[in-house]
């Protein structure tokens, strides 16, 4: 028989997270700080709208781009948070999570050989999605000394004639880094100069702890070259609903919708109804969760300092990225031993790019009690090293 699998697919590395997942699964009393999703349940009024839509028999496909009412709410959200105007009908559409939007944006924009600039450490899907779109991923290494922000110099260094798309992964998973206005301004200058397009993954945009998140699309000359990706997973604790969206200029949106129409048809209808409620009446829930994450974040940093674990202050998402290079172990060794010896699961920085070596990702999307228990294990482990 012939080889059934394409070379392109076979060449993609499996996620570095998988290995830890498998070990944890075998243990019965492991504790984890390894999740990438909120510990909160979806607020009840949002769930209730989903349930209500089912009761009313709204069990059909929606239009490919998603419910008009939801797209209107999405555009209102962009207006009230970023001051950006998007036309709900031609410049926004609803996806199956931010994940789908990342995939579509890259597929719609790159030709074989085009280069996609990917700052790392960052979320695991950008690089494989770029490869699947036949692009050449070009990694920009973010540095601890820059608080893992993207600098204009680091970007300029990696630009070539083939550079087409820059991924902007902020607020960042796994580092918790954010880009402030001044950081964005410096980078935007290079983007305009090199005529790049931007895919800005703002899924953690609601979870920032030092001032509000600024979208790069709101900077001069950036709206027409930026696709903003966002979703409901993190802000509203809705990971399982699989709901996200993209907004951007019509010429790119229409092409993304074309792929979406053939590959997906439409995002889950129940989730879309719940999403309308989230955007209309969910601000207070988001504020409550943000406040709670912030308290845990402060506790975490305090504990790290106390146990002698160096960590830059993360101002976004719900992750901290402490520096473990001083313990004489690689990230993978550190995490494997931590899991074997203290039954505590965390994710090695290298799961998010080679330049994550020397770091581990710790999630604080846990109840305060669970967080404290887990930190005790971490403290014990470090004191033995």
């Amino acid at each position: 028989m012939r080889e059934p699998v394409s070379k392109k697919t076979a060449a993609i590395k499996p996620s570095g997270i998988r290995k830890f997942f498998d070990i944890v699964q075998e243990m019965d009393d492991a504790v984890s700080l390894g999740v990438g999703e909120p510990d909160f349940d979806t607020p009840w009024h949002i769930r209730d709208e989903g349930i209500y839509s089912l009761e009313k028999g709204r069990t059909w496909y929606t239009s490919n781009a998603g419910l008009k009412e939801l797209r209107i709410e999405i555009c209102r959200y962009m207006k009230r948070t970023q001051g950006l105007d998007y036309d709900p009908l031609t410049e926004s559409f609803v996806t199956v999570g931010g994940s789908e939007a990342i995939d579509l944006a890259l597929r719609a924009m790159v030709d074989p050989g085009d280069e996609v600039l990917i700052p790392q450490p960052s979320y695991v899907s950008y690089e494989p999605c770029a490869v699947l779109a036949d692009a050449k991923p070009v990694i920009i290494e973010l540095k601890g000394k820059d608080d893992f922000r993207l600098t204009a110099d680091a970007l300029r260094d990696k630009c070539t004639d083939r550079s087409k798309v820059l991924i902007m992964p902020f607020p960042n998973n796994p580092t918790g880094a954010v880009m402030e206005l001044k950081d964005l301004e410096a980078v935007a200058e290079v983007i305009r100069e090199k005529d790049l397009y931007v895919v800005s993954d703002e899924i953690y945009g609601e979870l920032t702890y030092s001032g509000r998140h600024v979208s790069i699309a709101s900077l001069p000359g950036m709206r027409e070259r930026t696709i903003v990706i966002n979703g409901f997973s993190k802000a509203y604790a809705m990971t399982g609903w699989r709901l996200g969206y993209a907004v951007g200029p019509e010429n790119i949106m229409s092409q993304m919708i074309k792929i979406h129409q053939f590959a997906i048809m439409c995002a889950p209808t129940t989730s879309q109804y719940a999403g309308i409620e989230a955007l209309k009446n969910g601000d207070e829930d988001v504020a409550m969760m943000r406040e709670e994450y912030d308290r845990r974040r402060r506790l975490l940093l305090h504990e790290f300092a106390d146990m002698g674990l160096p960590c830059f202050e993360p101002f976004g998402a719900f992750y901290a990225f402490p520096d473990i290079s001083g313990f004489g172990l690689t990230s993978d060794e550190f995490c494997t031993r931590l899991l074997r010896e203290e039954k505590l699961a965390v994710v090695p920085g290298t799961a998010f790019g080679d330049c994550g070596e020397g770091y581990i990702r710790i999630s604080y999307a846990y109840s305060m009690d669970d967080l404290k228990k887990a930190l005790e294990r971490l403290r014990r482990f470090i004191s033995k090293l």
Partner: protein
Amino acid sequence: MTEKQILRKKILDMIEKNSRIAISEIAVMLGEDELAVANELKALEDEGVICGYHTMIDWSKTSLDAVSALIEVRVTPQRGQGFDSIAERIYKYPEVQSVYLMSGAFDLMVILEGKTLQEVAQFVSSKLSAMDSILSTSTCFILKRYKDHGTILAAKYEDIREPVTP
């Protein structure tokens, strides 16, 4: 709200959920000075905003007998004192847990705790109904507590998320 009011609100929110939390921990979580938090707590106690640090107990999980009843009470208010003096006569009984003045079809809501149904019934008939200004009472026994003081009693929190995800 002023800065101070915001801090007070945050402190109250935290200790309302967990009265055993250490002052140092509150300070860390709020990014505040420990002394400032201690002072604010003291002030809140002095002002009577914080009235006590109680424990929430689900007595139905113990082997001890306990019944609770909500009693709707209609009364004739007294000249010059409104409902206050009759409320006081009721709340002085130690078995009375709470007394609220209500808007609507009745006047006072009395929450009573006793060991048995009989004990509660006895209190209503011999003490409460016998008071002069009380026109009528309507007693409702609590059969099951699902949620109390913001805490869901029926289900225990369990983290069923996948342990490691991107």
